[in-house]
């Protein structure tokens, strides 16, 4: 179902147009354009150091791009006059190293954005936070601190933290790369559940199994540009570009994810 070509809905949630970013003389992103439709999952793959993570932080303007434009629905968020904090509150972000607030309990980690940014009353924020923590299977860890959790649990808290804000889109920056192999599954399962429930997601990941299962679109990036983009079937079975072929071959050997 999730793989239907844009489903019934042709609504574009995220549009990135001709994005550039460099650090000094080092160009990291060199003219990237793509769009993500509502309820779809785009998986970005590519070797490390090719600007995938930078691309994500350019989208929510944590790293302001040098050039190019980004739209969230029909709002241009690269417009300097925009209230970027309001925009960020509707773009979830999940990080490789979870980035949970170490001094706050699990419940407070998930509740903080609601009470501080969205000014939701504490009781209501608690209800929402508990609902999201329940969704990621951590209803029994409300009072634990991040340091008391496993990496997989921490990452699920951070997904709940993103979900609590009721985002239009969630960006995942290598969400399972810092996890022990036996903890990857629990995080991927939550992400698959999210994708199937219709959340719009952009995921930088090397989990090919995940990409096959839920991606509507796969983007292969190298040296700051999109080398190839397409549906998973096309990308996995008939990649056009020799670099894509080579990369997918290597990554499939490493991470598995061959179709059963």
């Amino acid at each position, binding site marked *: 179902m999730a793989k239907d070509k844009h489903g019934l809905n042709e609504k574009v949630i995220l549009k990135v147009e001709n994005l550039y970013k460099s650090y000094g003389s080092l160009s990291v992103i060199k003219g990237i354009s793509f769009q993500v439709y509502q309820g779809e999952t785009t998986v970005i793959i590519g070797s490390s150091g090719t600007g995938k993570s930078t691309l994500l*932080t350019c989208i*929510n303007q*944590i790293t302001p791009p040098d050039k190019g434009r980004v739209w969230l629905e029909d709002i241009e968020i690269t417009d300097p006059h925009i209230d970027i*904090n*309001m*925009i*960020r*509150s*509707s*773009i*979830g*972000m999940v*990080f490789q*190293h979870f*980035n*949970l*607030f*170490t*001094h706050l309990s699990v419940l407070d980690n998930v509740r*903080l*954005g609601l009470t*501080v*940014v969205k000014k939701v009353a504490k009781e209501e924020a608690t209800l929402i936070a508990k609902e999201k923590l329940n969704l990621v299977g951590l209803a029994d860890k409300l009072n634990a*601190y*991040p*340091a*008391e959790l496993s990496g997989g649990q921490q990452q699920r808290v*951070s997904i709940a*933290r993103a979900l609590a*804000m009721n985002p239009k889109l969630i960006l995942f920056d290598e969400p399972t790369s810092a996890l022990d192999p036996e903890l990857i599954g629990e995080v991927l399962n939550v992400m698959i559940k999210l994708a199937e429930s219709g959340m719009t997601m952009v995921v930088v990941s090397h989990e090919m199994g995940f990409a096959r299962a839920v991606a509507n679109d796969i983007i292969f990036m190298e040296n700051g540009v999109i080398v190839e983009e397409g549906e998973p079937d096309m990308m996995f079975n008939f990649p056009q570009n020799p670099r894509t072929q080579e990369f997918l071959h290597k990554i499939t050997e490493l991470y598995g994810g061959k179709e059963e």
Partner: protein
Amino acid sequence: MNFLELAWNILPKLLEGTLVTIELTIIAITMGVLLGIPVALGRVYGNKPVYIICTFFVEIIRGTPLLTQLFILYFGLPSVGIMLSPFVAAMLGMGINSAAYQAEYFRGAIQSVKKEQLIAAYSLGMKQVQTIRHIVLPQMFRIVIPSWSNELIYLLKYSSMAYMIQAPEIMSQGRLIASRNFRTFEVFIVVALIYLILVLVISKMLDLMEKKVHIPGL
């Protein structure tokens, strides 16, 4: 008169001084916190002018002895028409001095809050002030406790400098007593014991506080 009798006799006077010492220390450490945190924030988050002002303050105060600062306040300021009582001069001098040191402790603590957590806060849509208020400061207060504890203990002992501008703290009282009974050795042994007891009590209290606010992983 044996040592215990002597100690017992001079204790009331010394405790008067101890009270002044404690007052001075509490006021100075509080001034230091109230002034030190903004200075630390100014050095980390301030724009260029704010950064420069805060850095100047820290470097000038840390770069000159407390005793010199006390003399400027107490003996120097009257020449420009500002007369301070010994207690007020000692309080101001110690407070400002402590602020400079505390600013550095707080700055270190602020900078050791993980940058990733700040990015997470910004990604939630939090403004910089909100991030400082909800992420940076609560962690800073916990991280800073060990070095801040040292500052409190130093400050208590450095309050003895106030003797030099005639503030009636414990050293002044000791000197006064010794000048009358000529039992300098015994008098200052008692003074030293009082300091020691105060420091031990403070250490224990801070220890308990650190345990009480401890959060796993912080």
